[in-house]
């Protein structure tokens, strides 16, 4: 009879499995504490005090948002209210959102809440991607707020007959199949005017989340060669 080796001992492997699984789980839980603290939503006073959060508070809808290459991090980051000398958010420059740039924390929170609920109930994620996750039947919405198509030079404001980005977006969301841009259209989902406002706030807020540079080069290159 061959001598027993530890490598062929079931109990040894059973214990290894338990230890490895336990160790990996503990590490994941520990990292989860660190990460959830870092991605908790900021507040209005963070913004007032110039504190950059990975997920800023809902009142960012009062500010101008851009997406700039950051030298130090070597990828783009959302810049809220204009940039400091080192390229981070200065939280100075405001921008009107549906005619106001003084949305209070309560109002902005309520609007974002409505928008997030709307994004789930209207099933956005089963056509679009949000933060890159979802379905691939329609464009990614991570930085949709910053898409040149909705800006002053884009086609969507003229098409919907509105003068601002947020009004154009809200109009489109309420009657998407009236404004077809391609053969593939967004269906009418019964979105009300109030829900549309919430959804646009949700999109504007999402564009301020620090996504480590995803998507790369967003809106920077226009009319490049296409690979047909």
């Amino acid at each position, binding site marked *: *009879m*061959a001598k*027993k080796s530890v*490598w*062929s001992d079931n109990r040894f492997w059973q214990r290894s499995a338990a230890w490895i699984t336990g160790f990996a789980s503990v590490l994941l839980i520990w990292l989860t504490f660190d990460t959830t603290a870092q991605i908790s939503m900021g507040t209005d006073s963070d913004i007032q005090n110039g504190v950059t959060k990975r997920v800023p508070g809902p009142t960012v809808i009062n500010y101008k948002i851009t997406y700039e290459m950051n030298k*130090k*991090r*070597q*990828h783009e980051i959302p810049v809220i209210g204009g940039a400091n000398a080192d390229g981070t958010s200065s939280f100075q420059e405001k921008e009107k959102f549906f005619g106001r740039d003084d949305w209070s924390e309560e109002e902005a929170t309520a609007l974002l809440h409505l928008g997030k609920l709307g994004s789930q109930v209207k099933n956005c994620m089963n056509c679009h991607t949000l933060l890159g996750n979802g379905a691939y039947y329609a464009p990614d919405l991570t930085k949709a707020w910053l898409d040149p198509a909705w800006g002053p030079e884009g086609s969507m404001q003229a098409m919907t007959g509105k003068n601002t980005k947020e009004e154009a977006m809200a109009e489109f969301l309420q009657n998407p199949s009236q404004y077809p841009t391609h053969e593939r259209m967004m269906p009418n989902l019964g979105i009300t005017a109030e829900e549309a406002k919430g959804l646009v706030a949700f999109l504007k807020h999402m564009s301020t989340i620090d996504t480590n540079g995803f998507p790369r*080069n967003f809106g920077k290159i226009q009319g490049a060669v296409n690979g047909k």
Partner: protein
Amino acid sequence: MVNEVLMTQDILVEDFLTIFISSTLVLVFGGFYVGIYTAVKVKMLKKWTLPFGYLFWILTSYCLYLMGSLMHVNELTAKALVVAAIGLLLLPHAVYYMQDRVHEENEH
């Protein structure tokens, strides 16, 4: 974490295809290596085919290197890839050694 530059360069458009193909081949060749080794050990293939198995492992490592350098991976990821390549080299040996032990203990 942030002061270190983790991602330095855009991937060149013409490099994408090479990256996708080489990373696919990493596992295809890796699978051939493991498959040939195992098949020789259970006597489904003749012994002389074994060097070809190791040749596939070398190809795997090369593809891993090519893929890593074209996507400009940083040092830590590069080390992780080397560990993965060595892990793949050792894996079937370890498996065979253990399986053989267990079979011996159960049959004799």
